[in-house]
């Protein structure tokens, strides 16, 4: 079982908190919206990922147990 990150692009308005808190996996595009550089969160970064998810003001960052079912 692994944890994967997903952005809800409708909810995201580009605050950019996630990239501050999890730069290893999230960078921002030229307009300030997150780009995930890896889908799966490496185990040592899971706590940081949880913090980034909690910090998102629009609840647009999702940490999900990967089922392999959805793209």
């Amino acid at each position, binding site marked *: 079982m692994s944890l994967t990150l997903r*952005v809800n*692009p409708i909810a995201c308005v580009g605050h950019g908190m996630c990239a501050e808190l999890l730069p290893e996996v999230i960078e921002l595009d030229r307009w300030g919206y997150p*780009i995930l550089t890896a889908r799966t969160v490496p185990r040592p970064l899971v706590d940081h990922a949880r913090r980034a998810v909690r910090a998102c003001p629009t609840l647009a960052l999702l940490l999900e147990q990967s089922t392999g079912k959805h793209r």
Partner: protein
Amino acid sequence: MALAPRSPRGPRSPAERNQAPARFRPPGPRVPRLLAGIGGLPPGLEGHELRYGPLPVRGLARGRPGRLIDLAEASGLTGRGGAGFPTGRKMRSVAAGSGSKVVVANGAEGEPASRKDRLLLTMLPHLVLDGIALAAEAVGASQAYLCVHGTEDNLLHHLDRAVLERQAAGLDPVQIEVVGLPHRYVSSEQSSIVQFLNGGPAVPTFSPPRPHERGVNGNPTLVHNVETLAHLALIARFGDRWFRRAGLPSAPGTTLVTVSGAVRNPGVYEIELGTSAGQVVALADGPSEPLQALLIGGYFGAWLPVSAAWPVPMTHAGLKAAGGALGAGIVIALPASCCPIAETARVIRYLAEETAGQCGPCVFGLPALADALAQLAFSGGSPGQDRGRSLAEIAGLIRVVEGRGACRHPDGATQLARSMLRAFPADSHRHERQGPCHGLARPPLLPLPGDEERDWDFR
């Protein structure tokens, strides 16, 4: 499929009534099938039943509603709205869901260069309505909707009349409601329709859940294109083996295509899947002037240079292998004297305007891509120090936008832009180095809604 002979005396038993009598011969065996139903007989339900026989709802089910799903799966029918998902599999997943089910027929045809769905709804509404009724029975739906563009008053009235005619005849096992959607490119996306039917705006939603999991009123919802449903109505009557007599084993049946651009006889044609793109142009009486490329799949599709496009089989797999997409079966022939860069730039501008305005990468990325393409097409690439970097900028924007929206809108646009770079490398470089080409002398070819009000000051 064995056909029961018509009983020589007395009224037919219910079982017989639901078998297609011998005189209802399947159209075909190959093409046309759907389009064979146009003309000759009185319009309305009467002519429809004379041609195809009664709706085989009960006879088909024989106490087992899932039989149509088996038939659909065995037929190999795939969605004709653009994505090409196996129809039977979609039906089965909705049928397996819990609670009451909903069927949505998508006739909103967002692609500006497509006419097939409107043709079907205008000329063969009862074949589509048969498909809705059959699909509803098969998945156990208690409500069905037929969605078209809300601006088309005549079509809405025409369909309302057809539904009333069927109600008076006590034909359909479910209530079918005709619904007008706001006229926008993204409103025909399936999650847009579901959100609209739930009382929200007709814009795409974040998924999962997908409509087949949680759709209208939270119920499992089957969304099919209207052409898919019309094929289903024929499969229900004539069987999966009949259906497979046309097309390829891997892509069976026929499909409607809309051919336009520089062809002698533009219009909607029915082809066997696997027909080559060149044969499709020939069906439209061939090119009306020398061609340089075909745009296949509409504005979410791809340009293919004419030599590469000609032998490509019209199937999802065939076009994908050639770097294109079948989409909803749109073929536009681009004359040699048109500027493909300018044509692409105009369409990307249109798609940028048609964003639902929800996702940042689409809201900011598509206008930026449209700006870069317009610069390349009409002014000869980026000015000043960035001179010669336009193509790199376009490629970079494509990469940054792709796959980052809630729906496929940004990806459709980037696929078209990428295909321009691939199909017209010489034109692209010439524009970047030397500025606009003589193709701008011609009026634009690709149709856009509201074209007459558009201010194409750079053209």
